[in-house]
């Protein structure tokens, strides 16, 4: 049982290059499932490898369970890692792969076999698979063996580096929930790296969003979605992504698509203090409520105080349960995406009106990207 702590941990690859991970401060609680998410080059994998001891620190420290492990070799950190490409030893059988760490640790043969069998059962790996070589396994089985190799060690911390990225879409969704389930059952602190925000949202107790080597925000998935601290987090979390539009400020609020959206007083104050003429508005696709031809709303009823945005349909993506509308806004001509519930009978070229509640709108500083208080 262990918590993990990054204390202004940094990693610089080349002298003149910006740090891959810059002064990362992150507290991971005992038994927590922490997801590090970010685009490629955000430093999430480097951060994980720093915790594993595969990457030295150029500043700060890393702690596992109150012990400073900054200079402790990987094998003495009591961690287990699942690699993106599984890194199974091709010449060893599944059982040998899973038991290798125990063998290195001098665990007795019988105990080793017992723990390997136990882990295999936990992962629904047939006994007959244990004698096979990794080459003779399917992708999903290999992934489970890689998981098993980590579980067998009964480590203090699991480190997972995009373990699902080599699986096909269907298996990925299935395995996603299995891993989350397994982690809950074992209660072992887990740090999970992914670039897929859906994985981050569905699996993590908390999610840490990284970009450019900097930690942007750490929070629960829900909170991250509802309260992004800046434009990057707002745009990264959520699928389809939040619509971000740079719009001019006016007396009453912000001018967008033929209407003026009133802004909360706090946002207006912040904007005028910063001397802004324009700002970035963020609206999630599901907060654009379509009114059909007769002006009737198709979305949820209570839209008191909402404003109407005008536009023209560019493309309709039917997803079955709902549909995505790509719409060109009036005036600015920018295109936005709206999620509509149920079936809509709209065709490209058709004029359409959206209702937006002012309280669903996020406002960001156009240069720094920081959220304007709201």
């Amino acid at each position, binding site marked *: 049982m262990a918590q993990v702590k990054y204390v202004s941990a940094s990693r610089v690859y080349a002298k003149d290059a910006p740090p891959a991970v810059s002064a990362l401060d992150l507290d991971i609680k005992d038994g927590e499932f922490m997801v590090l998410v970010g685009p490629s080059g955000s430093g999430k994998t480097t951060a994980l490898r720093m915790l*594993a*001891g*595969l990457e030295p620190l150029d500043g700060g420290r890393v702690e596992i369970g109150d012990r400073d492990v900054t200079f402790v*070799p*990987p*094998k003495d950190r009591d*961690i*287990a*890692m699942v*690699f*993106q*490409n599984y*890194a199974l*030893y*091709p*010449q060893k059988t599944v059982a040998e792969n899973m038991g*290798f*760490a125990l063998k*290195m*640790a001098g665990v007795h043969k019988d105990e080793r076999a017992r723990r390997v069998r136990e882990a295999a059962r936990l992962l629904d790996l047939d006994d007959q698979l244990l004698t096979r070589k990794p080459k003779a396994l399917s992708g999903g089985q290999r992934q489970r063996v890689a998981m098993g*190799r980590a579980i067998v060690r009964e480590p203090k911390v699991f480190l997972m580096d995009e373990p699902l990225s080599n699986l096909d879409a269907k298996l990925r969704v299935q395995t996603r929930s299995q891993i989350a389930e397994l982690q809950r059952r074992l209660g072992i602190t887990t740090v999970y790296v992914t670039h897929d925000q859906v994985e981050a949202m569905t699996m993590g107790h908390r999610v840490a969003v990284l970009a450019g080597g900097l930690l942007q925000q750490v929070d629960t998935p829900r909170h991250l979605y509802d309260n992004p601290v800046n434009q990057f987090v707002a745009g990264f979390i959520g699928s389809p992504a939040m619509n971000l539009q740079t719009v001019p400020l006016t007396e009453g609020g912000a001018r967008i698509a033929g209407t003026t959206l009133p802004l909360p007083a706090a946002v207006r104050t912040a904007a005028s203090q910063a001397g802004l003429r324009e700002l970035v508005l963020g609206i999630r696709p599901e907060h654009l409520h379509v009114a059909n031809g007769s002006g009737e709303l198709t979305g949820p009823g209570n839209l008191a105080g909402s404003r109407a945005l005008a536009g023209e349909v560019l493309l309709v993506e039917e997803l079955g349960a709902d549909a995505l509308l790509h719409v060109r806004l009036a005036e600015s001509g920018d295109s936005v995406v709206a999620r509509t519930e149920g079936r809509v009978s709209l065709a490209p070229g058709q004029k359409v009106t959206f209702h937006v509640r002012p309280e669903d709108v996020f406002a960001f500083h156009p240069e720094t990207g920081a959220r304007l208080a709201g």
Partner: protein
Amino acid sequence: MTATAVPARPVKDREPGPQKLREMSRQVGWGVLAWVVGIAFFLPVLWMVLTAFKPESAAQTWPPRFAFSPTLAEFRLVFSGWGPFVTHSVIATVGSTVLVLLLGVPASYALSVHPVKNWRDGLFFFISTKMLPIVAAIGPLYVIALKAHLLDSIWLLIILYTAMNLPLAIWMIRSFMLEVPRELLEAARLDGAGRIREISGVILPIISPGLVSTALICVIFAWNELFLALNLTVTNAATMPMFLISSVPQEGLYLAHLSAAATVASIPVILVGWIAQRSLVRGLSMGAIK
């Protein structure tokens, strides 16, 4: 469940279109070329083997006669005299190859997986030893061997053949080691494997086809080496290529005898190559296969 649509079966085209014809003629062209080149390489070997079975008198005729009464006389002669030579060759070849692998694996490891400081210089040094023609070094080598009382000694050949093959082997083994996925080595480190375990338990099993092909090339080079053996040995360490030379008498006919000796001398290399051809191909093209 309702009836499912039956996918349309693709219509088999009877007549090959012009596209297909061009493709076929290209294939035939390459095939012919391959055969021509293959035969060009193989003919001298065939001639050698045929000549080995001829009596000495028939071997010298021009144009060569393909109808003759085969005889094993020349082979009998070869086998009566080759004993010490083949023993020396086997000892020098096997001994040097084993040494090359023993030295080459750790050296390659230190130049690839965990590169030492200035590994580039090290790598360049090894290959630079192959840049000087061996003739230029034979004088000093002779003197050193003389002073060390190693002239005409099998130990001298083992040492020299090791030195001769080591640079190439290091370059080959190193390139195989670089192919080992980094994550695998990291996984081994996390699993608590030390350096020795990392090499013996993880790296060596993966690069074993590469090691086989490296060893094979060392065997071929050592087995066929003539220059050093000729200059530094006389009888106590004379190898098979020396035996071939000794098959050429000062006067008289020798072509059949030489052919028989050469045939015998080639057999081990061909045999080893044939046995190891699968791992040889895999080893030499290791980078291509993932």
